[in-house]
């Protein structure tokens, strides 16, 4: 699965994209965040403020309860501040 990070999530994780093999037991967006957070302190730090993390699956906004459903790309970012 392709992962992408933006703004301060990107800065805290220290990269803007990576490809990971997600275990079948990780079925939702929330579980994916938990699984990444367990990898090392950079991820744990980036995802610590769980409510501030917005997620898109295949470039569409989803809630943390959303199933991954075979999505090819997940993106993590803070609340948007464009416009």
């Amino acid at each position: 699965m392709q992962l992408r990070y933006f703004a301060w999530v990107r800065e805290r994780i220290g990269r803007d994209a990576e490809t990971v093999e997600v275990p079948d037991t990780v079925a939702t967006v929330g579980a994916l965040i938990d699984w990444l957070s367990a990898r090392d302190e950079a991820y744990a730090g980036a995802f610590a403020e769980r409510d501030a993390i917005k997620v898109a699956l295949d470039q569409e906004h989803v809630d943390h309860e959303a199933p991954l459903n075979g999505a090819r790309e997940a993106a993590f970012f803070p609340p948007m501040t464009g416009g």
Partner: protein
Amino acid sequence: MTHAKSAENAAPQDDRPPAAITVRIQLEDFDTAREIERLSETGANVGAVVSFTGLCRDENGRLSALELEHYPGMAEAEIGRIARDAAARWPITGLTAIHRHGRIAPGENIVLVVAASRHRAAAFQAADFLMDYLKTRAPFWKKEHLRDGGSGGWVDAREADTRAADRWSR
């Protein structure tokens, strides 16, 4: 999270032709006059054109620039979804949204929305709606660069912007 009613689910309100929707994400500046003119010419029954231009403020001299990061692909897709939503809600003939990314100095343009319609209420509401949702749903993030040389960090999302977008939920 607030979800706009999707264009696909909205009942068609009449047999009007589909609105001309244009979405562009770009580094370079845009030409407001040309975009207004383009939508004014979508038909001789266009009676109202509303434009919104968002500019980089200097925050009382504190800022040297804003840096706009975006999510390529999703930015276009999400603004396109919001624009189709607007076109399903109001009888508009044309809707244009252009959002810049990269480094933008105070006084420079950041975003442009233009809505054209037969009537002024639809044009005002569609432009206002598009801006509210663009602020809260389009994947852009602003980082401040300070005049004293430092970074002011990432701009926080404003609660007022979320409330503004919530106005449109029915």
